[in-house]
């Protein structure tokens, strides 16, 4: 498909066939320099590093698969994998469904729709440090807005971020509030593309709103939902800012994610080889989950059609 769409005009002329036309290379050269230096070389270097033992002192030593094997027996690493999965299991369904419901509401015409839409969408653009400092303030044990509201209702104050039972839940909640807007935009653009005549035909046939949603809207949104699930799974594996600012991985390591563990390993303990191995584990897990969820979700949603 792509092949046929590409029709180059400026091919070397038949007459000058021997002299290679260098124009395309000049066009891609500036970008390729950056791509090679900051993507390709680091990618290869990262792979090599993952087979080496190296802290800033001394020379790197080749250790084969030792980093990978060692990691499997490190408790913190295993806990980090577990916490990352926990976050994914909690956040992916929420970020798939809540934005869908909000998009269905915002897809309706009503006075103030625009205002409501902007109010709900805009937080996702705000930088993480702003958003997270705001939530630290909102959730403050003594004077935070949420505990003040609890107090007004006669409920006890909660140390939201320093209790093992609630810290991860708070991170999920804040992430939902913060990033829902992004998925709402994705849903709204799909909803606006849905063929209206299908709904008209369904109404004529006496299908109510629920039937229409279940039998027309949902199946047509299938690809969008798959796409969002993939995005959210990748995002879960990258979870860092929330942990770094809200909890620092605590309490008792209960919110230490893979990305945060990588940061600690590489830039606090300066074990670059091990950190590189962590990043390759991340890649492997993302790849496996990506394939797995695509298969499962396709089958599951496939039945509805």
């Amino acid at each position, binding site marked *: 498909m792509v*092949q046929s*769409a*590409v*029709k*180059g*005009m400026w091919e070397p002329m038949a007459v000058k066939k021997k002299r290679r*036309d260098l*124009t395309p290379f000049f*066009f*891609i050269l*500036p*970008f390729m320099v*950056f791509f090679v230096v*900051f*993507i390709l070389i*680091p*990618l290869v*270097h*990262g792979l090599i*590093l993952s087979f080496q033992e190296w802290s800033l002192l001394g020379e790197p030593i080749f250790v084969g698969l030792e980093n990978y094997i060692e990691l499997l027996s490190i408790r913190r690493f295993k806990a980090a994998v577990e916490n990352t999965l926990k976050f994914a299991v909690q956040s992916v369904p929420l970020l798939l469904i809540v934005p869908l419901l*909000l998009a269905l*509401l*915002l897809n309706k015409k*009503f*006075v*103030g729709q625009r205002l*409501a839409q*902007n109010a*709900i969408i*805009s937080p*996702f*653009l*705000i*930088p993480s*440090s*702003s*958003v997270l*400092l*705001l*939530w630290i*303030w*909102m959730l*403050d044990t003594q*004077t935070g*807005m949420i505990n*003040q509201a609890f107090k007004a209702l006669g409920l006890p104050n909660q140390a939201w971020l320093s209790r093992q039972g609630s810290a991860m839940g708070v991170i999920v909640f804040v992430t939902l509030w913060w*990033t829902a807007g*992004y998925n709402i935009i*994705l849903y*709204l*653009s799909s909803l606006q593309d849905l063929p209206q005549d299908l709904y008209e035909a369904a109404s004529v046939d006496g299908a109510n709103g629920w039937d229409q949603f279940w039998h027309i809207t949902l199946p047509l949104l299938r690809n969008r939902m798959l796409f969002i699930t993939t*995005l959210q799974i990748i995002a879960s*594996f990258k979870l*860092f800012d929330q942990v*770094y600012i809200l909890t620092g991985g605590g309490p008792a390591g209960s919110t230490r994610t893979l990305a945060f563990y*990588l*940061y600690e390993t*590489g830039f606090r303990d300066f074990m670059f080889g091990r950190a590189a191995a962590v*990043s390759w584990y*991340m890649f492997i897990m993302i790849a496996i989950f990506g394939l797995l969820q695509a298969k499962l979700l396709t089958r599951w949603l496939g039945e509805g059609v």
Partner: protein
Amino acid sequence: MAGIRERRKRVFLSIFGLLLGLIWFFPILWMFFSSLQPNSELLIYPPRIIPRVLTSENYRTVLFSGRGVNVGRSFLLSVFYATCVTLVVLATATPAAFAFARMKFRGRDIIFWLIVATLILPVQMFIVPVYLLLDRLRLLNTIWAIILPPIGPAFGVFLLRQFMLTIPDELEDAAKIDGCSPLRFLVQIVVPLMRPPLVSLAILTFLGVWNDLLWPMLVITDSKLLPLQPALTRLRGEYHGTFEAGTIMAGAFVAAIPVLIIFALASQYIVRAISTSGVSR
């Protein structure tokens, strides 16, 4: 009858939608209102949502004095970093996308798909090796450590190429017959046609640099070069112990306001960028 029911439904939707919007947006309003109150006022129960005493003191502290953290300076630095990256990304991605979309050369498709394949790799895979690379080049703690690496990712090339494939061949033929060089065709005809995706790419790139926390935090330790996001986390370190929430919120709001303004002015570009590409965060 149906008209009345329909109208009632609309009114209900309006009330529900606006109320939900208000609740959702409330934390951001609270960030703003907190920043306008003296720190002592914020410790009072019940909290005052509408400030009793208004003060600009928090903003003055954050922008001009700040204990070792100069948010005003970091703000300007962030504008500078984000603008530089955006300009270079546009300047490098546009001709590359053009070559991949409209020119024929050996290895084109292999190179292009190799580039696109790297888009699925998580950013964490590059942090350690790029850090070490910059260390070896003695670029850590310089502006280059922030400006250069974000130019490498292929997102811009991928996005622009998809749009450039849609330019009709007739336009190219006509240009060629008129003796127009590829470079002139790109600059005078393609770029004006590509304005929407170029604007989208510019906004996404700018926001990406503006919002980044981890990378600048790793490569910049000199507070004179520190961009806004890591500066804010330092600000928290300075003011959290004494719990000056108003001051921290003033810093947070300073970082949020440009983004909210960009959204207000260019929301359709942001929405289009996200819905056509779907890859940014």
